[in-house]
């Protein structure tokens, strides 16, 4: 029996070599093209359709002023979204955004020239809140990786801790306003046709996209999101990378807290409210998988723009506020289904 098998094996290998091995290869190539581009195309398509509809409904929609307006509104969710995307890429989640924003925002306003008096600490007013965000992010990462508590729980706790820090810092005095108009006007100020805050957000997106694409750290994040065990077996410093990513997310939330405070010209501990549940859907709509390992910041960028255009367009189209949330929800579901349509085949278990 042994001889039969080996001789037939050699004979068969020639035939199989061409038929069996090459076929999956070529089909793989074909699928690869669509897999890479399919979703962003669908997303950009959805965006184009929305823009076309809204432009038809109100000519003021497609104006430079409104473009500046939309990009200004989208900037903070984009900045938070960069951190959120990195965290989601490794298969975790960061719910502490609003708490960290509150803590950094209040710290920022109290250290700047403000209506409560106190000292203007200049550059330290920017550094300390970002450091605060970094520390809270590091705590997120360390508790998550060392104590093996799910990131969902750790960051939920850190949300409240951040909020608590903000409340303590805020005290019971009057609402503190920034007194320096240069600070309050900076974010929305137009430079080269677009608001400053958008340039900042765009720069962060570009840098982080490059980091994900071109650094070992970025690739490791994707690898960890795909399969943590394999990453560890390959000698990757999984814990270090995870903590680093939570630190980046915390720092970005800190930056967002400062910017939100500058935009409002002052702050309370409620400054971060609503940002998390604007950003997370945008990340998912962009096509970053909550399971980790798949997606990117450019997608999140598109997701945020899509959501912002949607809300802006509905206001400009004069849709009654009574219907706005239901309508935007319905449009979102359609957009997500359309974007995920190319994916549905992959839900089946591969052989």
């Amino acid at each position, binding site marked *: 029996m042994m001889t039969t098998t080996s001789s037939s094996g050699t004979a068969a290998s020639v035939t199989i070599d061409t038929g069996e091995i090459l076929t999956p290869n070529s089909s793989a190539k074909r699928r690869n093209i669509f897999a890479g581009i399919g979703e962003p195309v669908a997303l950009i398509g959805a965006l184009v359709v929305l823009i076309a509809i809204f432009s038809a409904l109100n000519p003021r929609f497609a104006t430079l002023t409104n473009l500046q*307006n939309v990009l200004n509104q989208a900037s903070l969710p984009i900045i938070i979204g960069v951190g959120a995307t990195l965290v989601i890429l490794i298969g975790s989640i960061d719910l502490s955004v609003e708490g960290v924003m509150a803590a950094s925002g209040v710290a920022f306003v109290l250290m700047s020239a403000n209506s409560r008096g106190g000292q203007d600490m200049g550059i330290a007013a920017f550094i300390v809140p970002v450091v605060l965000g970094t520390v809270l992010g590091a705590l997120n990462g360390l508790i998550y990786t060392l104590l093996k508590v799910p990131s969902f729980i750790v960051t939920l706790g850190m949300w409240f801790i951040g909020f608590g820090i903000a409340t303590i810092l805020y005290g019971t005095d009057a609402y503190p306003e920034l007194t320096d108009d240069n600070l309050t006007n900076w974010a929305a100020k137009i430079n080269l046709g677009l608001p400053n805050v958008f340039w900042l957000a765009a720069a962060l997106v570009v840098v982080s996209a490059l980091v994900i694409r071109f650094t070992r750290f970025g690739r490791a994040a994707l690898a960890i999101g795909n399969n943590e065990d394999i990453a560890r077996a390959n000698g990757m410093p999984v814990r270090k990378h995870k903590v680093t990513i939570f630190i980046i997310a915390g720092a970005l939330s800190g930056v967002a807290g400062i910017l939100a405070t500058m935009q409002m010209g002052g702050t309370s501990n409620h400054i971060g409210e609503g940002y998390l549940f604007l950003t997370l859907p945008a990340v998912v709509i962009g096509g970053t998988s909550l399971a980790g390992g798949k997606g990117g910041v450019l997608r999140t960028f598109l997701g945020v723009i899509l959501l912002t255009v949607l809300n802006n367009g509905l*206001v400009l189209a004069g849709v009654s506020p009574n219907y706005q949330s239901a309508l935007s929800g319905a449009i979102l579901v359609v957009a997500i289904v359309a974007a995920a349509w190319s994916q549905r085949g992959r839900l089946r278990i591969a052989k």
Partner: protein
Amino acid sequence: MSLGTKAKRFGAVAALATAAALALSGCTSTAGGTTAAQPLKKEDLVFVCSVINTTNPYFAANIEGCQTLGKKLGIPVEVVDSNGSSQTEISKIQAILAKGKKAVVFVNTVASSDAPTIVNAVKAAGGFVTIWWNKPDNLDPAKVGNNFVAFQKHSGIDSGKCTTEALSKAIGEKGGIIALPGVQDSTTSATRVAGLKEALATQFPNVKLLDVRPSNWDPQLAYKNSKDLIAKYGDQIKGVWTADDGMQIGAMQAFKEAGLLNKVKFVSDGLYPPTVDAMKAHEGNDAIVGETFHRGYMASAIGLYTAYLAAIGKIDPSKLPHEKRDSMFKISCVTPGNLDEYLKWDNNVAGWVDTLIEKGPWDTEPVPLVAGGPEVIKPEYK
């Protein structure tokens, strides 16, 4: 009071029926009259001051009022910070009630639906409570009994009318305005919007309400909505009406960024400290042209003092007329011209509280009792 709606009549009938049932089933306790017969001693009392959060200037003023009154009367004050959560609010109040002292409670409720739970808890513990701003329409102090001393508020319709008049006059009684209400299902916001619409319909036919975008009492949402509306209407917008000063901050920031602050007028409710500063500084060519005047410390002090009087037996709630159990207090209209007249109160909270103790809860300027509730919105202004 002239509103003889069906609902009201039904309410009155129901109240009568309940009162009759109570009288039949428990005549001894009613006759005994818990408060009249056994007034509580001052040393046994604790003031409870429950607010939605501690960072909003209005709620911060609530606390100031409670503490000032507590100091005057020599009664300790416990502050409840609900942190925006009904659960937190109720559980903290219950914890204080469980400590044993008789509680005299002022609650600025997080949501209307919290009121019955709180009222029942206070009643069971033998305390006395006044609710401010939010309660369900069917929760009537007269039906609950003496422990629910009163429900009190300022008229939202009056607030809306007052600010709308100021805004319309400032823009020459013609042109477009936008409105940013609070949370859509909030009674407070709805009554203010009703006042806005009524004033426009009856007095200022040439002022056009371009758009109404609920902004959930959130400065940032107000900022975003303002930006979108600026993109939509541009310089058609001559005036901005907001339901509170927090949203006004967001709206003003948006117009400032668009370079329109000097050309647009703003009105709102509350006269928060930042608003006062802006008015004093004539910001944006006197952009803020109208505010209502009512104060957090006045509300809480009136509320607590009413409940206190019932607790020590100075008043018998069951014998009070309807408008003193379900009350609306006066709201004043402030313009840049008369601002200073009103700021004097803020500089002397203790003095004002002395007046309150001297004149009683219903006759103290600038917030005397003006009417009884409930406040009814005419369907055409919904």
